[in-house]
């Protein structure tokens, strides 16, 4: 392993070669690349183990520097592969996983690591100080997942690193054997990768455990709050971390945020007076700053709970917990402030006892301001990362490339875990010590390149992180906007890679992926299902009656839980347990389980669809007091504030264990307390059925031609989201029920495992997830199926993954994971893939999923047929997932943002505080919005209304709302948007004339103008719905409907339609306008040589003269005939070929007709006609058209006589008139002066200047060309190389023409003049 890395770091092998080598070993790509570096060939046996080695290596190298956030161990096989062989205590010592399901693995390594040396680097004093780790218990999620079972588990409390150190050694000794692996090239002696984040030894741990347990038991109900979700993180608390990083940092921040309200501020040493609301300094460095949303999230290592020294009683902890919770539910702002004050004091207290002095549990209120011993530490908290100080760049680049390739190729078990790790590196806070701490580096034997400390300073870490982020840009750019913003504003990225900074900034600016982690929860209403719940569905009156009673009891329980479950000392089992069991007994007596299971399931879906679990957060039911205080129109603000409180701010790492949140807890606890086999069985059946039903979701194929596609797509997405979330919820409970009987607290020993596997291999799975999974891959709806299967499997017990059946499932999932390389393709959209990868990555990190699975499973075992059935619209190919859904399904992705935010908070505090509080200004719309309570009441009223009416009424109203809403959008598109686009066209044309500068900018400008008007859409949309909705309802409902019902139905339909339409419009109108304008603009640009100046002239000539019969010859016909004339004129001619004069005259007449009738005319035809006639005139002028005078007597007209009897004059006059009168566009008359056409004149032996001069005068006379224009044309003609005599004549001609017009004599007769002047010309020549 190390050998490979060694080769890489010594630059003997390129990173790309290593990737190739890796690829060869993994996955089905093997065959295609066999160009493997020779040095790697011999190491081919190691491929499988290389990635875990690399991941361990990076963790190992960076463990010194990472002080922010939880450690991010990836599950690697070596770490726990042999856990099964170990005895309990060993295991506890080694991995500390078993009991509390902590996912933290210690990375055992094959190469010997210099753990001792590293250990010694801590000064004992520092180590013994605040090395507390009441790890990761999360304040905001006091949920317990299996209280009855897991109650024995408890978080490990702090321990002294000194003890830690020695104990580790002993534990290493004890577990030496267990680290032996069959790999032949492994070094004979391995040490567990204890180092910093090592745990305590067996005995030490045991003591702590016992202590914890006893405390937990004392705490009775509270024990649960520290179990599972809390405890499982505990090891991520790196004792080293807390020892090294000054523990006070965030406390101080907190103090800034929550300064004392009273005058008793002891913060004399703070230069800046703390204020509750800070004005935000506008910083040039962070130009994107809007009010900062970050709530100075506390990195876990410093989260309040984590900072309890070992002696602290749990009371303090629970107090805080409560404090926080009450503040969430706080009904009174004053109270809330009080809480915050208390909390601050507590934090301060902890902060000021860095030496590990036990906190007096009885005096949490006592502020010890004076003891700010840790303050100085803050000054060097955030080391400024400097690109110039990076050492061993080359190696870091190699590593970054290799590491990034592993991520890109899905060779790592969890992409986001790695990204989290990278962000940790990016935001690592080096200590001041780091530069001086040369002893950190291993001096002896450091020749080994892979053993060298490449990451020993912040600069290197940041350099590496930025490199990797650059490689992973595509994934990052798909993250939600807040994360992008934090990245875009990250000073380190800006200084280390300006290009990446710029890319991120652009990504942020163009991102529309705003994600709220707090989704509005569905209205909590009790659902009655008359179809299934009425008497006819029950065998007897008694059963029916009992069911009705059960139903009432059930809701009573629910209400009780809702009201009380967050109160201290309230215990589900104690309060509700007996009631539930009594109810179950009743159900058993009447065999009503199936009915109740259905009700249970429906209620579950109704309440828990939201990501938080819904219901319990006061977002939907805000306390009236709070509302009064904050103002009901500031709901969004309130929401954001709530989000800060409710959504955990502490960083828990990107791989939390599966847990039940919010309302889900009720249902889980209900199942556990009921303990009814029958009920569980019915529930399983019911869940399976519903899952299968929902999993069959197909999308309706949409006509793209039809205008509502946009809206339908949105609806579709919504529908998909609802189905996906429901499926996940149901699958989670199914998983819970299915694996419940097998759940064990500890991992079974190997023997137990074997026998259990042998036993359980015989049973059939309840739901054939393997089949469903295969189907989903085949039918390409994996995007729907995989997320819920992951939820199902996340609750797997320790043994199940070893069963033949589930092994296959995991294999297949792994295979899918490996194949799903992230890129945008038409098979599956990027975000769809990202969701699948995120959930799968999470699943692979779930504690009960065996680690060796990811790295050791032979992926090729399961044949994966990626049949592409493209006939129907496969779900996978539709971009259904957006960031909101991604983050809803994987809330742990938000950890990335929190980590970044905490960095900002940290560095910001140092630099004067960028962190801003919410500024309570009432800048938002002053229009009275109905308060939340009102809206809720309204919704309930509507529900009640429909409930009393036949179902068809509801269907009708919904249908009408749907159609009218959709039509409304179409209507707006056709009217308002079309108008705006037209206006935009005019504006664009004007602007294009001005400058043909930046088109994008132009477009942007014009659109910006229109957006405001776009707001009109809402008003018009409302009008439309108001008019159309009631009409439709009236027509569709039976005539007999009572007036009141009809009226209500109309109102509801109208409201719903308006909501739908206006919702869509307000979200999309700007984009829509922009799209349409852009399309128009592109069309404008495409039309070559847009005749802009003549636009008006064309406008005038668009219509036929009144009474036109459209009988004129077709333009094509005329062009064709003129072409024939030109042909003959230009030659070659047949013997005696001539053009009949009369015919030509007639042709010109028809030309005039054709030009007048605009019906069949198109611009190209007209252009061609103009050109052809000018050519014809030129040929006529140079007497090149062989005219045959017919029988027409020339004496017919007196004028013609005067025109030298030449028919050519007549034809020319006719042409002049046609040009003047009939053409709708400018005629290219300057062509007449082209070299080619003048050459026609020049070639004639007997030059006919009369005709030419006649033409010139005609042009002036008919106002077709100006005198100066002609002059300049003639002038430029003289520049050309003509025969000298011709040049002379030309000179003469122009002189005549000019003098003639300069005289400005009243021209009696142009023809006469022509004759005269020509006389002079000939005389002079």
């Amino acid at each position, binding site marked *: 392993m190390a050998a490979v890395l060694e080769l890489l770091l010594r630059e003997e092998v390129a990173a790309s070669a290593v990737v190739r080598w890796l690829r060869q070993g993994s996955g089905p790509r093997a065959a295609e690349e066999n160009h493997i570096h020779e040095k790697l060939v011999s190491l081919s046996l190691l491929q499988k183990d290389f990635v875990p080695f690399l991941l361990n290596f990076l963790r190992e190298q960076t463990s010194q520097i990472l002080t922010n956030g939880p450690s991010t161990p990836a599950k690697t096989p070596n770490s726990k592969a042999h856990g099964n062989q170990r005895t309990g205590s060993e295991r506890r010592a080694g991995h500390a996983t078993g009991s509390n399901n902590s996912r933290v693995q210690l990375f055992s390594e094959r190469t010997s690591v210099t753990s001792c040396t590293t250990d010694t680097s801590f000064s004992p004093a520092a180590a013994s100080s605040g090395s507390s780790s009441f790890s990761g218990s999360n304040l905001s999620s006091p949920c317990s997942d299996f209280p009855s079972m897991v109650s024995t588990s408890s978080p490990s409390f702090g321990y002294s690193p000194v003890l830690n150190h020695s104990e580790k050694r002993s534990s290493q000794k004890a577990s030496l054997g267990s680290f032996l692996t069959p790999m032949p090239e492994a070094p004979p002696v391995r040490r567990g990768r204890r180092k910093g984040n090592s745990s305590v030894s067996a005995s030490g741990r045991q003591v702590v455990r016992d202590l914890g347990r006893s405390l937990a038991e004392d705490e009775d109900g509270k024990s649960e709050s520290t179990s599972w979700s809390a405890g499982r993180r505990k090891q991520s608390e790196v004792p080293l971390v807390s020892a090294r990083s000054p523990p006070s940092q965030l406390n101080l921040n907190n103090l800034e945020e929550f300064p004392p309200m009273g005058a008793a501020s002891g913060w004399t040493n703070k230069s800046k007076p703390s204020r509750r609301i800070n004005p935000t300094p506008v910083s040039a460095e962070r130009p994107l700053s809007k009010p900062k949303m970050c709530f100075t999230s506390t990195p876990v290592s410093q989260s309040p709970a984590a900072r309890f020294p070992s002696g602290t009683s749990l009371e303090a902890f629970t107090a805080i917990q409560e404090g926080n919770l009450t503040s969430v539910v706080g009904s009174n702002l004053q109270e809330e402030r009080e809480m915050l004050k208390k909390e601050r004091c507590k934090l301060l207290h902890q902060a000021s006892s860095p030496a590990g002095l036990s906190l007096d549990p009885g005096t949490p209120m006592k502020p010890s301001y004076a003891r700010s011993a840790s303050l100085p530490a803050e000054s060097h908290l955030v080391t400024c990362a400097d690109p110039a100080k990076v050492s061993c760049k080359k190696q870091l680049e190699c590593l970054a490339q290799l590491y990034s390739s592993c991520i890109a190729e899905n060779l790592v078990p969890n992409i986001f875990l790695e990204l989290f790790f990278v962000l940790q590196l990016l935001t690592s806070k080096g200590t001041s010590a780091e530069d001086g701490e040369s002893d950190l580096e291993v001096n002896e034997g450091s020749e080994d390149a892979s053993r060298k400390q490449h990451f020993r300073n912040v600069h290197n870490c940041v350099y590496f992180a930025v490199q990797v982020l650059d490689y992973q840009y595509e994934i990052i750019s798909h993250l939600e906007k807040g994360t992008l913003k934090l990245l875009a504003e990250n000073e380190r990225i800006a200084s280390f890679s300006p290009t990446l900074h710029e890319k991120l900034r652009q990504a942020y600016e163009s991102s529309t992926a705003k994600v709220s982690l707090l989704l509005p929860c569905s209205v909590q209403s009790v659902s009655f299902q008359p179809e299934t719940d009425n008497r006819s569905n029950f065998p007897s009156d008694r059963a029916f009656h009992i069911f009705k009673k059960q139903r009432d009891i059930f809701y009573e329980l629910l209400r009780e839980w809702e009201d009380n479950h967050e109160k201290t000392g309230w215990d589900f089992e104690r309060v509700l347990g007996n009631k539930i069991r009594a109810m179950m007994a009743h159900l058993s007596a009447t065999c009503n389980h199936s009915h109740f299971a259905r009700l249970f399931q429906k209620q579950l879906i109704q309440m828990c669809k939201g990501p938080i679990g819904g219901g319990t957060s006061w977002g939907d039911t805000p306390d009236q007091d709070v509302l009064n205080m904050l103002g009901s129109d500031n709901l969004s603000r309130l929401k954001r504030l709530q989000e800060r409180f409710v959504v955990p701010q502490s960083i828990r790492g990107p791989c939390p264990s599966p847990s039940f949140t919010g309302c889900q807890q009720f249902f889980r606890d209900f199942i556990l307390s009921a303990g009814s086999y029958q009920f569980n069985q019915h529930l399983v059946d019911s869940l399976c059925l519903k899952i299968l039903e929902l999993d069959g979701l197909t999308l309706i194929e949409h*006509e*793209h*031609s039809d*205008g509502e596609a946009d809206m339908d797509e949105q609806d579709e997405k919504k529908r998909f989201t609802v189905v996906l979330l429901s499926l996940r919820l149901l699958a989670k409970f199914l998983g819970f029920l299915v694996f419940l009987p097998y759940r064990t607290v500890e991992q079974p020993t190997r023997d137990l495992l074997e026998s259990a596997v042998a036993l359980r291999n015989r049973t059939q799975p309840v739901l054939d997830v393997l089949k469903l999974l295969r189907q989903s891959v085949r039918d390409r709806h994996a995007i729907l199926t995989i997320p819920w299967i992951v939820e199902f499997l996340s609750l797997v017990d320790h043994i199940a993954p070893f069963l033949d059946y589930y092994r296959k499932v995991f294999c297949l999932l792994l295979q899918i994971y490996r194949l799903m390389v992230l890129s945008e393709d038409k098979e599956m959209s990027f975000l769809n893939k990202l969701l699948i990868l995120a959930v799968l990555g999470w699943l692979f990190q779930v504690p009960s999923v065996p680690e060796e699975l990811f790295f050791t499973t032979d992926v090729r075992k399961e044949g994966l047929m990626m049949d592409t059935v493209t006939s129907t619209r496969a779900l996978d190919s539709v971009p259904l997932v957006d960031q909101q859904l991604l983050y809803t399904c994987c809330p742990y992705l938000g950890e990335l943002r929190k980590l970044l935010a905490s960095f900002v908070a940290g560095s910001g505090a140092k630099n004067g505080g960028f962190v801003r509080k919410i500024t309570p200004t009432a800048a938002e719309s002053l229009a009275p919005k109905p308060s939340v309570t009102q809206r809720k009441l309204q919704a309930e009223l509507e529900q009640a209304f429909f409930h009393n009416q036949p179902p068809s009424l509801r269907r009708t109203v919904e249908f009408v709302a749907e159609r009218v809403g959709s039509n409304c959008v179409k209507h707006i598109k056709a009217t308002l948007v079309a108008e705006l686009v037209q206006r935009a066209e005019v504006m664009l044309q004007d602007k294009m004339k001005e400058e043909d500068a930046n088109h994008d900018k132009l477009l942007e400008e014009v659109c910006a103008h229109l957006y405001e008007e776009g707001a009109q859409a809402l008003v018009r949309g409302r009008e439309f719905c108001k008019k159309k909705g009631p009409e439709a309802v009236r027509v569709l409902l039976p005539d007999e409907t009572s007036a009141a019902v009809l009226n209500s139905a109309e109102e509801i339909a109208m409201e719903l339609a308006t909501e739908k339409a206006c919702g869509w419009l307000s979200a999309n109108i700007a984009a829509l306008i922009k799209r349409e304008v852009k*399309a128009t603009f592109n*069309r404008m640009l495409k039309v070559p040589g847009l005749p802009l100046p003549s636009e008006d002239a064309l406008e005038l000539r668009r219509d036929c003269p009144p009474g036109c019969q459209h009988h004129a010859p*077709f*333009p*094509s016909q005329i*062009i*064709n005939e003129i*072409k*024939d004339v*030109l*042909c003959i004129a*230009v*030659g*070659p001619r*047949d013997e005696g070929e001539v053009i009949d004069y009369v015919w030509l005259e007639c042709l010109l007449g028809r030309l005039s007709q054709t030009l007048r009738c605009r*019906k*069949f005319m*198109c611009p*190209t*035809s007209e*252009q*061609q006609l103009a*050109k*052809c006639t000018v050519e014809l005139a030129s040929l006529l002028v140079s007497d090149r058209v062989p005219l045959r005078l017919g029988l027409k007597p020339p004496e017919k007209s007196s004028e013609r006589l005067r025109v030298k009897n030449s028919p050519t004059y007549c034809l020319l006059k006719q042409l002049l008139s046609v040009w003047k009168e009939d053409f709708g566009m400018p005629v290219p008359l300057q*062509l007449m002066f*082209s*070299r*080619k*056409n003048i*050459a026609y004149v020049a*070639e004639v032996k007997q030059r006919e200047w009369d005709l030419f001069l006649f033409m010139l005068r005609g042009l002036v006379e008919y106002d077709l060309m100006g005198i100066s224009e002609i002059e300049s044309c003639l002038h430029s003609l003289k520049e050309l190389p003509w025969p000298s005599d011709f040049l002379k004549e030309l000179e003469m001609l122009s002189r005549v023409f000019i003098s003639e017009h300069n005289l400005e004599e009243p021209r009696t007769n142009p023809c006469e003049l022509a004759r005269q002047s020509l006389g002079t010309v000939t005389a002079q020549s």
Partner: protein
Amino acid sequence: MKLSKAQYDEIAQFLGQVQPTRQSLRKLKQKFPSQSQSTLLSIFSQEYQKQVKRTHAKHHTAEAVETYYQRYLNGVMKNAAAPVLLELANEVNFAPSLMARIVLERFLQEQEQAIPSKTLINSMLRDPSQIPDGVLANQVYQCTVNDCCYGPLVDCIKHAIGHEHEVLLREMLLEKNLSFIAEDQLRAKGYDKTPDFILEVPVAVEGHIIHWIESKASFGDESSHQAYLQDQFWSYWNRKVAVRLKMFLFLFFS
């Protein structure tokens, strides 16, 4: 108007060996007086295009180009007023316009010492006045005017015919009271490829359901049917313009 296969074959056969000039067209008219000029021209044009497609490459080899250019130079040296280029084209059996293009391209290449852009050449062919050499300008103009199958003039005529027939078709649809969506409306909706008219309400013609109409305003021989089917109609199908396309109308007005 219907034209029997035999008649068509006869015309096509006759066209096997003629030059695309005015004179040929005149002969054709004399030979098939019952056919309209536009029909004959359309067939002529199509047949000739087929022929050119076959021989195109031959005329574009470096040697051929050089030979033509030298012959042109020699020709105009002797007599600049003679139709050198046109005759050369007829002699080697190539469309005059295309011959003009070859020589012009070669000429510009010599003058500019670089390969001239396509837009420049096209613009010069459209307006030979822009050609810097007066003699060549005349020669080129002569070629393009005399060519009845290729060249800017012919292209324009074809375009005009297409437009006129579309207008006619629209008239007819309006007359028959058929509701339709026209191409420009469809384009406004963002279709890249659209037929001329989509019938909002399909109609049945001789037992076939017609969803849309595409007017091609050219003679619909077998190969062009095939080609249009390939290039255009299937793409309408793919874009779901006509969901159940049973037949397409291939209209030709004459």
